[in-house]
């Protein structure tokens, strides 16, 4: 250790592998002193200008702030506050493009300066020596200081390190071409920097402080030596000009001959590196009480008239800097934040200066040529010779291109500092660094995903365990109680199941039903956690499809509502039209007899038809024991609604109870209303037929044009178009469930239209609609994709509902007219239907 310090004191400088010597281009920006710019019109102060979390916002829009007033306060996790760079009004707080290669928006405080530039109350420390370690760290923290060399690491974190620091290394190398911000700062404020160094010395008490400066900055070296004369523990070390000697790890190697182990930080080997700008800011913060609100920025490049360094308030838009220094852009202008080697191009000049902005470079195409086309790698390994980390850039490039991430890790991709030396020397002009960055981002993402997957797995397993436990508890409870359900009942269920199974074996179309039943049962008993796989998959696909359809439909509904918001009637009418469209589609599958059966033209005929239907239904019911059904197509207006509701409820119940196969009792459901019963029978008949026809479903549907209302017609047309599309897209099974959905909606839509009419209360209507939707959804789900029959039923519901609806608007008019109109419509639909079939 002593020996090492002696060597360093004698001026020994080690060397780094690789490195390049790009043209310096620094002279043009060092001819003038650091300039002060006029206040800009607005300042865009990004809340996050460093590595770590945002501070917590403590100002609000419209508030007046003073210069130096904190805009955020630190809230843990390496967060560092930002301050108002001048006094003025906060005109907005919103996301603005950030000073980051991606320019992704970052929450920013936009300040309109009032021109007064009034400082807030400052608390300079007169005797820093009297401050405790923590107090000093706190001052640095509250002043918002983050590394100003490029990375923006919170300085207070570094200053507060608990590790023993042997060497404090001051990075004044500034190895990137063009940039002279640190150079000029050292020339003009060497004393301030040394004072900052001494504050850090107080905090870290290193054995030696080494200031590393490249030998192309003789003025700065002289100024620093002069300022550091009084302090023996500070050494100004001149290092040869080679890029990238200013990299943190490279500088450590250069000045001490030590290497920071991969994956560690310099503090692990007793080193701490600070940029001169940061140290100057520390001095300002402690001795003058001024938070970090401005920094030196080099504005350079051939398109700038007055190349030089300026004091830029943080948040000053780049545009202001360029305008003040005179900017005449060339075609395909690049504006780079940072230097030509590691800086990034800005997509807009409306980005604010941040704490890490050391240079704005606006080159023309002579000084920095545009990148040429990428050519084949000839493995010349000029890149490897230039790499300061002794990597094998060309190998990395192959692996990055072929996305072999394991190999990339094996070849230490993450030790790449992205200095760009390899790409600089590459004769084939391969954008090596870009490949590495993309690969790094991909690898990081993969790692994050891996961690997330790990957690998801844990949570999944924990949940499974919990469910099992709960279930066990439940079972235990059950056991304690005497088994209420007799064995006989269980036996029944088992029998039913067996029956279902045997059935499902011979008929494909029914297997779904059977599966649904089995599943429902399984659920009820809470027995198995693992359902039959294929079923799950199938069902899932169906559900997804359905959900999508549902959403689509909803969107359309909304659209319609948007068109004629106030006209509820038309909305309802549209819904009916849709229902009809659906029904027509259904009708396509049905044979004609069902249609005629199901269209009772007047009460008497209906009764007759109902009788026939009942007979049929009974037969059908006997044939297929497990057929679920329910409900009714009531003909009578008011009662119809009630009946429909009951029927719907039953349909749902029936579906739920499907495994119990109690269809018989359903028949007797509409007790009080005979007509309803009749209608139910009709519906059942239809359902049966539909179920039979379900297998050879083909769609193509048209529908009855609503007779009386033009709006309705339009809406219907839309609905029809949609229905058609939907029908085409849908798989058969989806279809049915979709239909159910829709028709249920319609059914529900009716009460909705009633409510507003009677009470005029929109809210109620909305509530009702929501409930209705929920019900529809639930019903749809529960019936699963299987029940063609119930779909049919619902269709008949529609019809029932539709009728009253069409009556309603013209309630004064004759019911008969409506009935006739409906009949005509139906006939039309049928015709169209047939035509459609012919076509297809």
């Amino acid at each position, binding site marked *: 250790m002593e020996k090492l310090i002696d060597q360093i004191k004698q001026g020994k400088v080690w060397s780094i592998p690789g490195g390049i010597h790009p043209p310096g281009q620094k002279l043009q920006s060092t001819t003038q002193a650091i300039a002060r710019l006029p206040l800009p019109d607005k300042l865009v102060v990004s809340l996050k200008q460093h590595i770590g979390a945002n501070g917590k916002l403590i100002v609000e829009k419209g508030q007046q702030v003073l210069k130096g007033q904190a805009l955020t306060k630190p809230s843990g996790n390496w967060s560092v506050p930002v301050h108002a760079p001048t006094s003025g009004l906060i005109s907005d707080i919103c996301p603005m493009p950030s000073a980051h290669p991606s320019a992704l928006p970052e929450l920013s405080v936009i300040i309109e300066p009032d021109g007064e530039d009034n400082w807030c109350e400052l608390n300079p420390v007169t005797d820093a020596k009297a401050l405790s370690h923590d107090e000093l760290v706190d001052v640095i923290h509250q002043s918002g200081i983050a590394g100003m060399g490029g990375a923006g690491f919170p300085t207070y974190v570094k200053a507060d390190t608990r590790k023993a620091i042997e060497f404090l290394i001051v990075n004044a190398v500034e190895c990137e071409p063009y940039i002279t911000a640190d150079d000029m700062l050292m020339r003009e404020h060497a004393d301030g920097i040394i004072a900052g160094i001494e504050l850090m010395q107080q905090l870290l008490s290193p054995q030696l402080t080494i200031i590393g400066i490249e030998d192309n900055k003789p003025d700065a070296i002289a100024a620093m030596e002069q300022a550091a004369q009084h302090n023996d523990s500070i050494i100004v070390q001149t290092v040869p000009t080679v890029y990238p000697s200013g990299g943190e790890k490279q500088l450590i*190697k250069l000045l001490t001959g030590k290497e920071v182990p991969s994956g560690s930080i310099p503090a692990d080997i007793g080193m701490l590196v600070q940029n001169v700008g940061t140290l100057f800011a520390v001095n300002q913060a402690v001795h003058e009480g001024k938070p970090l609100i401005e920094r030196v920025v080099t504005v350079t490049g051939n398109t700038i008239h007055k190349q030089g360094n300026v004091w830029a308030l943080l948040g000053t838009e780049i545009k202001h800097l360029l305008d003040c220094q005179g900017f005449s852009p060339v*075609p395909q202008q690049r504006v780079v934040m940072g230097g030509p080697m590691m800086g990034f191009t800005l997509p807009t000049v409306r980005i604010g200066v941040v704490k890490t902005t050391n240079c704005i470079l606006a080159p023309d195409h002579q000084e920095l040529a545009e990148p040429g086309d990428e050519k084949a790698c*000839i*493995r010349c390994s000029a890149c490897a010779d230039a790499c300061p980390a002794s990597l094998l850039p060309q190998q990395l490039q192959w692996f990055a291109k072929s996305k072999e991430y394991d190999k990339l890790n094996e070849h230490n991709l993450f030790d790449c500092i992205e200095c760009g030396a390899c790409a600089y020397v590459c004769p084939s002009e391969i954008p090596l660094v870009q490949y590495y960055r993309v690969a790094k981002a991909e690898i990081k993402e993969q790692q994050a995903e891996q961690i997330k997957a790990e957690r998801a797995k844990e949570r999944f397993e924990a949940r499974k365990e919990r469910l099992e436990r709960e279930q066990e508890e439940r079972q235990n409870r059950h056991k304690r109680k005497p088994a209420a359900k007799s064995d006989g009942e269980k036996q029944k269920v088992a029998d039913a199941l067996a029956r279902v199974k045997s059935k499902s074996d011979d008929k494909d179309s029914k297997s779904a039903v059977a599966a649904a039943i089995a599943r429902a049962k399984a659920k009820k008993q809470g027995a198995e956690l693992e359902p039959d796989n294929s079923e799950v998959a199938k069902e899932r696909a169906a559900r997804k499809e359905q959900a999508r359809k549902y959403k689509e439909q909803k969107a359309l509904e909304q659209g319609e509502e948007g068109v004629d918001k106030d006209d509820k009637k038309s909305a309802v009418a549209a819904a009916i039209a849709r229902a009809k469209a659906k029904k027509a589609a259904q009708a396509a599958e049905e044979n004609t007899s069902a249609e005629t059966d199901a269209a009772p033209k007047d009460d008497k005929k209906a009764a007759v038809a109902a009788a026939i239907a009942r007979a049929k239904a009974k037969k059908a019911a006997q044939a297929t024991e497990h057929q679920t059904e329910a409900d009714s197509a009531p003909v009578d207006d008011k009662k119809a609604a009630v009946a429909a509701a009951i029927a719907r409820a039953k349909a749902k119940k029936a579906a739920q109870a499907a495994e119990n196969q109690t269809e018989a009792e359903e028949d007797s459901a509409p007790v009080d209303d005979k007509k309803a019963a009749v209608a139910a029978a009709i519906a059942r008949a239809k359902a049966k037929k539909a179920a039979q026809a379900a297998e050879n479903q083909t769609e193509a549907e048209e529908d009855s044009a609503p007779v009386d209302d033009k709006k309705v017609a339009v809406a219907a047309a839309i609905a029809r178009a949609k229905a058609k599309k939907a029908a085409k897209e849908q798989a058969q099974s989806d279809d049915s469930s979709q239909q159910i959905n829709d028709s249920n909606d319609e059914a529900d839509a009716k009460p909705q239209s009633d409510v507003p009419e009677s009470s005029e209360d929109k809210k109620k209507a909305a509530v009702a609609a929501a409930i209705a939707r929920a019900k529809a959804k639930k019903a749809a789900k529960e019936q699963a994709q299987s029940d063609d029959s119930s779909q049919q039923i619902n269709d008949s519901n529609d019809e029932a509902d539709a009728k009253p609806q069409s009556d309603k608007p013209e309630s004064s008019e004759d019911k008969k007219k409506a009935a006739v109109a409906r009949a005509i419509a139906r006939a039309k639909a049928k015709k169209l239907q047939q035509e459609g079939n012919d076509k297809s």
Partner: protein
Amino acid sequence: MKLTMASSPHNHSHKSLSRLMMTVIAACIPGLIAQVFFFGSAVLIQLVLALITVSACEAAVLLLRKRKVWPTLGDGSAWLTGVLLALSIPPLAPWWIVVIGCMFAIVIVKQLYGGLGFNLFNPAMAAYVLLLVSFPVQMTSWLPVSDLLASPISFSQQLSVIFNGFTSAGFSVDQLRVAIDGTTMATPLDTVKTDVAHHLTVAESMSKPLFNDWFGLGWGWVNLGFLVGGLYLLKANIINWHIPVSFLASLAVCSGIGYIAAPGTEPGVVFHLFSGATMLGAFFIATDPVSASTTNRGRLIYGALIGLLVYLIRTFGGYPDAVAFSVLLLNMAVPLIDYYTKPRTYGHGVK
């Protein structure tokens, strides 16, 4: 006008692929001049033939692969292959020799492996070996230097030999090779090898007129020419010093040891260094970036092993010269060498 986005770094060393290749071609000029001086302008005919063939082949394959022709052809790598091959074959070899060689080099060795950067072997050397193995007579029919020719031949006669096989007077290459003293000429390496096989000492062999200057008339100068070109490449930072230096050093050490062990049958260090294709191989062939090792340590090993192989084949093998074989053999070993000579990355292997 819109801002342009680009990936850093935004500047570049201006060292482009084509400039690199052109510099290497330019560095061949001293050796080429020496060859023309000693073996006649037929070398230039071969060169032109080679350049035309490689350009045509490269363009044809690129078209077949549906790539843009000019960007790839313009990088000069194919031309360099053509130049190296033209410099390697006997000046009066029939025209189809160089044409076949160039076609093989470009189409099979380079493009079928995926084009520039993907070829496992050095195209020029692979083609050379193909020709040597397939047409041993034509490929070893080196003329004696023009000074020693029984009948000096004009440019038009050389042209005639290359394309017709005979001069206008009806002399074949074999007849032309007869030197003043009536003996058939071979290269110095060949001569020494044959003589040693016939139990002559090296000293006796070298007393032949072929060696009356130093180490084979002309050949020493040709090698010197390539050495000059090679040094220029080193100076211009086009090639690394590792391969040529380790190659030459290893060859020197081996031949030195051989000379000490058997001075009577070993021609010695300087003879080895300035005979045959030593300098061409050391600076222009073994340094071909695509097929050579890419790490510094690897390059040292690669060069040294080539030197060793050159010496072994020259001394104990069936062929008079060995650069092509050695380079090809080591080309195959490159992945292995590279794997075991990965440099230590910064921050790795330190505590």
